[in-house]
């Protein structure tokens, strides 16, 4: 699945990370020699975690379709574990929750793996939506029933359905782009995460005006505009490795950065409501899987469907 373009993109990301690591070390020596400045320590933890994430993603790309499907299935598992830890459920939901992890999740990714679009596009929103509440209903507990089944369904849509659209990009059939679909995944993740990172950087440098003070103290207009514009500029300049023209790439990057931003906003609202700062603790410096994936979760299905509708044969 490797193509010269993918190698260039990965080398570019590697270069950015080398630069970031050097910068992080200089900042540490200047501002936090004894390791006590929390912002600098967090920055370096984030950069270290980025190395791990990029390396894992590269290995999955090398392993081909099954590797990519497996990697995102595991991401879904970790995300679902974080999400359902914070939702409302009681003992009557035990079988529904077990089914979410050990039936719904593997089936959704299996349908992606065998490229059964007609099934994976409706499995969670139709079949699971209708059948899963039956399991909870049969156990007889009616307390908070609607809240319990709605929150479980939301968890599946966010953590399983949306994330599964990332590996599904491998199966689009775009004339003239055969054998290079992995670029679509790399491009989606690169633009969305670059936007996230640059929003963080611009926000730290000149962030003044908070967009939604009740939701997140770190989201500012300066950070949002600076970060999105940077990501759109860089993403557009890479149009030659995508199936898009330069103007189309610019439009696509605008959609990606907007959806990514919305993802961060909505997931922050949920965290605020549940009184937690992070979804989890497994990705040092970042928090949980959902903290890192929130923007990709919102961008992936839209990117998939727009690309499929306008460029794909299937």
């Amino acid at each position: 699945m490797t193509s010269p373009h993918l190698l260039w993109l990965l080398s570019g990301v590697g270069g950015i990370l080398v630069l970031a690591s050097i910068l992080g070390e200089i900042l540490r020596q200047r501002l936090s020699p004894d390791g006590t400045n929390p912002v600098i320590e967090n920055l370096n933890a984030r950069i270290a975690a980025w190395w791990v994430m990029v390396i894992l993603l590269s290995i999955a790309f090398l392993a081909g379709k099954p590797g990519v499907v497996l990697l995102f299935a595991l991401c879904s598992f970790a995300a679902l574990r974080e999400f359902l830890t914070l939702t409302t459920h009681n003992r009557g939901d035990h079988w529904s929750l077990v089914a979410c992890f050990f039936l719904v999740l593997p089936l959704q990714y299996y349908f992606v793996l065998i490229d059964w679009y007609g099934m994976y596009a409706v499995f969670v929103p139709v079949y699971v939506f209708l059948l899963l509440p039956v399991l909870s209903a049969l156990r007889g507990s009616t307390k908070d029933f609607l809240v319990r089944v709605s929150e479980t369904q939301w968890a599946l849509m966010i953590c399983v359905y949306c994330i599964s659209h990332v590996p599904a990009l491998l199966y689009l059939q775009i004339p003239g782009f055969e054998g290079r679909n992995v670029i679509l995944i790399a491009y989606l993740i690169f633009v969305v995460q670059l936007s996230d990172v640059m929003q963080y950087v611009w926000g730290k440098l000149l962030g003044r005006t908070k967009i939604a003070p009740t939701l997140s103290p770190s989201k500012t207009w300066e950070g949002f505009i600076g970060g999105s514009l940077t990501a759109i500029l860089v993403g557009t300049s890479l149009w030659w490795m995508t199936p898009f023209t330069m103007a189309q790439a610019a439009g696509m990057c605008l959609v990606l950065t907007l959806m990514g931003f919305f993802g961060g906003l909505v997931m922050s609202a949920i965290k605020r409501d549940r009184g937690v700062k992070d979804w989890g603790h497994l990705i040092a410096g970042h928090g949980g899987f959902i903290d890192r994936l929130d923007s990709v979760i919102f961008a992936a299905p839209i990117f998939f469907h727009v690309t499929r509708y306008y460029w794909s044969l299937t």
Partner: protein
Amino acid sequence: MSARFRSLAASLTGQAISVFARFMTAPRAIWQGIEPVPRQRVYFANHSSNGDFVLLWTVLPPGLRRQTRPVAALDYWLKSPLRAFIGREVFNAVLIDRRPEARVADPVAQMVEALDQHASLILFPEGQRNSSDAALLPFKSGLYHLAKSRPEVDLVPVWIANLNKVMPKGEIIPVPLICTLTFGAPLHLSADEAKDAFLARASAALLALAPGAPT
């Protein structure tokens, strides 16, 4: 089976159980009142699931894990050969008999003996799994007797959150949810502190670590 094979099997089984526990619960240790350093300690925790001591054991750094032994009920862990293997050889449990009429050894003496061999202990002072609505059942007196016999040992409260939702009593398949273990500040028996007062203080110290407890 040769002794070497059994000990290898025990070590691998321990690793496998620990990996499985991490997969299901991504356990997070919050060292709120102490640091994970090699000091002799009695970790005492709330008990809502059979997985409690496994999870506590899993989040300890490997060096501490080797010298930490759970205190467990003999009538449960000797019921089948598999359980006996896991209890005795994998976790090196101090097996005590909860039935006063049947026992041949005094549980407190067994625990003190383990402490004198430089082990740390994992203890569930409620004495049984709590499936009631109360946050904690009343403590048995073993913790007090330990504190009295070996006053220099740190008694560390550990609140295990969410594990009862991973595997509610009576269910067979666990559901993956994140569990948190909060380690509090160590307790010691004060001079002239009575048994009931000490047990109440230990129970309150443990309860104060529960999520949502008033700080």
